[in-house]
Each structure stands twice: as C-alpha cells, then as structure tokens.
C-alpha cells in the first residue's frame, strides 16, 4: 500500500465524514456523528472486506473470481435456510441454529468456490465466464429454492416464510464501564459512550477485521502464502520447483469461497434475519473494485472497503439529516443521488487516476502442464 493511495483513501473518508458533520451539526454534536459514522462504516464495509479478501486469495493464486457476488448470494440464502431448518424443523435452540447458519453459509461458499475451481482449473473454462456461470446459477437457484421450499407442493412450511431464529448478538466492549468513572461532566460521558459504539460490533464484522490481518500474515509471512503467490505469478516456475499448481489453486479458490460465504452470512444472519432475491445488490462486484484498488493486498483491500462503507454511511446519515440539509446542498436530499456515490467512486477508482495497480502476472491464465 503506497502512501499516495493511502492518502487518497484518507482524503475521501475525511470529505465524506466532514460533509455529514457539517450538515448534521445543528442536530447532534460532531463526536456523536463521527463515532456513529465510524460504527456504520465498519459494519457496512464487512461484506465488502470479506468479498475483497476472497478475491485476494483467488487472484493471488491466479484465478480471477468475478463470481463473488453469486457466492455471497447463495451462501446468504443457504446460511439463512439452514438456520431456519435447524430452528423450526429440527427444534434446536436459537443460538445453535444461528451459528449452524453461519457454518453452512461458509460451507456453501466453499462449495461454490469448488465449482469455480473445477470449471477454471480442471476444465480451463475462461475464468470470467466461470464466474458469470456462478452468478447466474446463484440467482436461479436461490430464486427457485426460495419459492419451491416455502410455497411449493409438499413444503414443510406450507406457504409461509417462517421467522428466522434471529441475528447474531452484538459483542459489547466495556469501554464505557472502564472510562466513565474518570469522567466528571456530561460531555465527557457522552464522548465515552459514543466511542464505545464504534467498538460494539457483531461477530462477522469483528472476524472480518481479524481476517484481514490473518490473511496478510498467511499470504506474506508463511511458506504456504509464498507458494500460493508463486502459483499466481509464475506457475511454470512454481511447478518446476515442485509446487503442485493445481492443488494450490484449488485450495486458494476454496478458501476464497469460504470467505465470500462468511460475507453472505453477514447479510442474512448478522445484518437482518431475512432473505430476499438479489439481496447482495452488486456488493460482490464492489468488493472486486476494492480488491483492485487495494492492489491485491488484504490491508489495502480493507481500507478501500472502508471507503465504500463510508459512502454508504453518508447515504444513511443523509436520510437522517434530510430536514436540515442547507438549500445550496439540496442535491443531497435526493437519496438516489447519494446512492450513486459508491458506484461512481468505484468507476473513478478503477480509472487508475491515483496510480495503476498491478495484478498477479498469471491472473486469469489457466495453467497447462
């Protein structure tokens, strides 16, 4: 991650945060706005971070993965479905059902990863097409099963979508409890409780951040990571020194699928307890842009994901502060205009105006022995 890129990211985030603070200051104090923006940014960036990590793993090993969107969608569905089955059909308690849902989301992501691996590594299908097959298959399969299982003949649910057992709990970090005794004024207490909100996140969001650093360590400081990267840069050379190119690529793509699966769990098990067709809404593709902008590094991809998170947080806050938007910024009242920001940002970032990125040398090229 070069400094220029990092500076650019910092600049965008400051502009987005600054805009919200400027508009919202008549309603709430800046510290409350900033911390709530930070909390939203981290939460919204979660699936993007995980999706980008999925991309990093696949592409570092030389497999382009544009099927992340489909992987997220199908694992969001199957995770949610298995949580419902565990709870309603098999009668397990809420906690067990939810965590089984997370597990199945990861597993179905891995299964989709396996499909991409079979197509692109064994059968040497054009990898972009392989990814598209996954995207279309995911839309068809989730749409079909969603209707057939709940409304179809012989459905155990007989035409009603049952309530999901719920969402993952927020993990509380006791910042307030530790620092509030040091406070002697109401303002200080407000600062402490708002900062606490940034740290109170849900399990998938926290694991996403941990996984960024774990992925960084694995890819750049372990023998396995060196081999995975070698396979993506120069498979022939890797093969010559005895690395099994096919095995490394399979492993990386399946790991990537699992990460996309965890991102899927975010949608239906952590964020809201329901599924609707096409709910991923392009976030798999935005993850890819984050991965490219982060120059195929986990930490870079994460910071890029935070930019998109911040632009989403701006969107949410603009609706909260809708009535106090000054007339010269009236354009921000149109939620549709603000909603375009992540997509336009993605395009601007991809044009490479802040420096070109370099994909792994053998990215997208099937390996022939």
């Amino acid at each position: 991650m070069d400094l220029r890129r990092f500076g650019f990211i910092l600049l965008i985030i400051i502009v987005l945060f600054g805009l919200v603070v400027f508009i919202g200051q008549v309603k709430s104090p800046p510290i409350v706005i900033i911390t709530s923006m930070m909390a939203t940014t981290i939460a919204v960036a979660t699936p993007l971070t995980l999706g980008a990590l999925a991309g990093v793993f696949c592409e570092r090993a030389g497999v382009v993965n544009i099927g992340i969107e489909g992987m997220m969608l199908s694992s969001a569905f199957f995770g949610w479905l298995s949580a419902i089955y565990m709870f309603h059909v098999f009668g397990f308690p809420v906690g067990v059902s939810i965590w089984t849902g997370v597990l199945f989301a990861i597993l179905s992501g891995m299964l989709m990863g396996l499909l991409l691996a079979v197509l692109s590594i064994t059968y040497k299908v054009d990898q972009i097409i392989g990814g598209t097959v996954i995207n279309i298959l995911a839309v068809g399969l989730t749409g079909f099963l969603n209707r057939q299982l709940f409304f179809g003949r012989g459905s155990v649910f007989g035409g009603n979508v049952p309530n999901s057992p719920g969402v993952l709990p927020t993990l509380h970090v006791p910042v307030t409890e530790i620092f509030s005794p040091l406070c002697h004024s109401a303002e200080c207490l407000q600062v402490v409780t708002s900062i606490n909100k940034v740290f109170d996140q849900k399990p998938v969001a926290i694991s996403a951040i941990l996984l960024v650093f774990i992925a960084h360590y694995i890819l750049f400081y372990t023998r396995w990571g060196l081999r995975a990267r070698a396979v993506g840069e120069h498979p022939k050379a890797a093969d010559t020194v005895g690395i099994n190119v096919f095995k490394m690529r399979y492993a990386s793509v399946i790991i990537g699928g699992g990460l996309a699966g965890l991102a899927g769990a975010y949608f239906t098990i952590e964020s809201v307890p329901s599924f609707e067709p096409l709910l991923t809404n392009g976030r798999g593709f935005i993850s890819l842009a984050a991965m490219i902008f982060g120059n195929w590094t986990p930490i870079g991809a994460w910071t890029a994901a935070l930019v998109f998170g911040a632009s989403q947080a701006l969107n949410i806050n603009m609706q909260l502060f809708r009535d106090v938007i000054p007339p010269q910024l009236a354009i921000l009242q149109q939620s549709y205009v603000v909603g375009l920001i992540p997509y336009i940002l993605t395009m601007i970032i991809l044009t490479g105006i802040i420096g070109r990125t370099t994909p792994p040398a053998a990215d997208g090229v099937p390996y022939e022995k």
Partner: protein
Amino acid sequence: MQADTSSDLPSKGFLRSALDAMLVPFLAILTAVVLGGIIIAVVRGNPFLAYYGLIQGSFGSAKALSETAVWATPYIFAGLAVALAFKGGLFNIGAEGQLALGATVSALIGYALPDWLGFDLPAIIHLPLTILVGVAGGAFWAAIVGFLKAYTGGHEVINTIMMNYIALNTISYLLNGPMKDRDPNNVIARTPLIAESARMPEIFEGLRVHWGFVLALLTAFVIWWLLNKTTLGFEIRMVGANPDAAKYAGINVKRTIIVTMTLSGLLAGMAGALEVTGLNFRHELGFSIGYGFDAIAIALLGKSHPLGVVLASILFAAMRNGATRMQFLTQLPVDLISVLQALILLFVAADAIIRYLYGIKTKGERVVLTRGWGG
C-alpha cells in the same frame, strides 16, 4: 494470452460456420434438460408434464408462437450486443443498463416530443426518431465504458456493472419522479403512454408480435456481414483475437475498442427502444430486469455467432414464454427456468465436460474471451 481461434479469422460461410458451432451447444442443452428433469423429479414434480407444458406454452398455438417471438426480439438484440463485444475481446455485462436506458429515453421522446414542439408529428418522422434516440442512449451508455477501457484500462466488466446500477437507480428516480405517468389512477413507476405516431404498426391483428422481430432477424444478418465482410469487422475480430498483433498490424486498438463497445450498446439500446415502440408503448420500472444476464447466456450459447444467437434467443424465449403454462400444469415455480438456463450455460461454458461425456474430440480450439484485469 492465447489467440481466439474460434473467431474464424479466415471467414467461413454463414451456414457452415454456424453448423460447426452448434453440436456442442445442442448436447449441452440435452444434458441440461436431463439434469433439469432430475431436479424436477427431486422436488416432486413430473418432468414430462413440465416439459410438455413448456413446449405447448411456447409453440402450441398461434398466440404461443407470437408470444415466443415477442420474448425473442429483445433477446436477439441484447444477445447480439454481448456477442459482438465478445468478438472484440470485450465482456459487456452492461446490456441490462443500456437496454433500460434506451427504453427510458425512447419513451421520453415517444410521449413528450409532441408536447415540447406544440404540434403532432407524422409517424414517418416520430417513430424513427423515437427508436433512434433510444439506440443513441444505449450506445452512449456503453461508449463511456469503451472510452474508459481504451484510455485508462478501467476494466469493462466492473464498469459496465457499475453503469448498470447507475442506470437503474437513475431510471427508478425518473420513473418515480419527473417522468411518472400522471394519471390519477396510476401507482406504478412508469411513463405515460407514447403518442400514436411513435408506435409501430401491428403485423397480425390481435397478436402482439411486432415488426421488431423481423428487424431483429435482419440485424443478425447485418452483424454477421459486418463482422465477416467488412474492414471494421475484421479490425474488431483482430483486436479481440490479439490486441498486440492488431496494434503492430496498424489497427487503432483504442478506437476499435470504443467502436465495438458503442456498437454493442447500440444493439442493446435498440432492444429497449423496440420494447417501447413495438410492444408496451411505455417504459415501466423493472420490466427489463434480467435481460442483460440472459443476453450473456444467449451469446455464449450461440457461440457468439449471429445465427447461433438467434437460435439461442428463440430457445430462451420459448422457455420464458412456456414457463407460465408449465407452472399452470405442474405448480412448479417459473424460477425453475433460471436454473435450467444456468445449467445450459454451465455446460456450454465448460464444453470440456460435454466433450468428455459424449466422447467428442477437441479440435484444438480454445476460446479466450477476456483477458484478465490488465486492459
């Protein structure tokens, strides 16, 4: 970085090259149909009744045939859009947005132009103008992506997807706001009906099939001619096969990329404009959702050959059209069609599986349609 030998640089005859390309897709469809039948049986449906319903609903009567042609019209245009881009080494996932944008601006000209001018236009001017503006809208939307690809290397896969979201959000805003049908009974996000002078005449009384279908068949031939018999077509295929070689041969690669993308968007915009002028006489939010992804499957299934695209479009149209009858007979959800289509696409894309299953020898062809992220 292999060359795309399947784009037939020394051009073959129209029918000959089409027949050559059709064997594997045919077997892929067969395999998908068998697998689909198994899926239907697993969810306790009757596969034979389902397929009977599918065929009856799509080809069983004059009305069914007409409706299949109605479905096939946008599929052919959008499929050709994706296929043309493939030939030029570009992956246009944005047909969806280009089509929707084309339909929206076309509808705008269709209903608002007489008001702006203050007098009624004769159909001979108004109808072509309405179509042309829609076509230009689609072409413009795709040209942006072509420009970004040529001059900045921004990958067209991501950019077309982003342009899809931008188009769909913008259209949703327009159809709920400035362009909404002001009829007091209307609660739907849709434009008013276009003027009579912007509508295409019907072919058969009482059937919805319109001249757009004929136009689609003609366009398929024109695209084949363009790709195989003109210098521009040669340049497009050359850049698609090997941009480096094309550059050394003196072809302006950047210009060709922009032209290919623009032509591709033009075709997608045409699909949208014809839906408005020939069929719905307005644009309604959400009516075009899914066309873009179906078009990709169609282009792949047709092996990017214009005749293949026409046949694949008719197949997909028949499936979409027959799905209602299938649902009526078997109570299976229409989404089953998407699963079937994904399976077909899967086997067409992974033709190695089909070749292995049926023992067909590989003729050394390797289709490389896109080239990583490099740009």
